[in-house]
């Protein structure tokens, strides 16, 4: 499992931000992998937008992921969500 931080995003955002430590994300592989679990609603060379189990994900090539939805920073739910997301990305080989 890669190291990552779960942090509180800017105050106007509702959700959490997950940031990989010194790793980047291959958005093509991430999109292919997450398309099996949810719906890829948009992609560009720097960001991938995914709807997944009631959450809206913005996954950036730099290694940060914004998770919007009913989840609060610092909660067990946030930790579990981050763990599952990183695990899914690892399995697709998207974490570089």
């Amino acid at each position, binding site marked *: 499992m890669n190291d990552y931080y779960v942090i*509180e995003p*800017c*105050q*106007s*955002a*509702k959700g959490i931000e997950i940031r990989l430590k010194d790793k980047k994300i291959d958005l093509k592989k991430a999109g292919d992998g997450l398309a099996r679990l949810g719906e890829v609603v948009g992609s*560009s060379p*720097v*960001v991938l*937008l995914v709807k997944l189990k009631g959450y809206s994900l*913005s996954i*950036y*090539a*730099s290694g*940060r992921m*914004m998770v*919007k939805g009913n989840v609060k*920073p610092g909660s067990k739910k946030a930790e579990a969500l981050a763990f599952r997301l990183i695990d899914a990305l690892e399995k697709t080989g998207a974490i570089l």
Partner: protein
Amino acid sequence: MSFYREKFLRNPLSKGHQAAIRRSVFAIVGLGGTGGFILENLLRMGAENFLLFDHDRFELSNFNRQMLATDDFLDMPKVHAAVIRAMAINKNINIKTFGHFDETSNLCSAAILLDGTDNIKAKLAMARLARKEKIPYIFSSAQGTRGIVTVFVGYRFEKAFQLPCGNKVLDRYAGTGCPGILCPAASLAGTLAASQAVNVIIGKPFIKAPEAIFFDIFRKKIFWKAKLG
């Protein structure tokens, strides 16, 4: 005629005032909604020396209100985007960038500290550092359709916002969340903050805490003055 003179010739300022703006060092913490507009205004007024602090990168949800949020800058550190933007306006600028700000940050020779952040912890750290360094702290805040701007030059920030003094934890004040910010609110707060900073630098009248400029772009009377605290 120099490029600088030609670019900023239409500023209705005396040579002395323009020179003061040009040589002063402006420290800006936060380059999002208000901070981006603070930077843009100061650049257009001919400021050339900046210390910029921001730990964040641009994301899609910034686009509704943040001056520097563009597709070209998406996922880029905000301080890097700010340097590119500043260089596009004036290639002679001197900018030092920092990915972190706290009460121990080095403000070097900054003449003034401007607030482009959205949380009370960072604002308190700024107020304390400015007080320690004996420089004015330009407070600005925008939320929804509203905003507040003032200048702290002696009056305690903790008193204005009824915060604990000393090093008591401020967690209960942070992360309250908000439904969002409309761009004119962010840009007005940033523009007023930049104008107040320049007024301080060139010796024009400026608002002093505990008095503050309040605004709400959805109200009939958009601007008013009131006391904080």
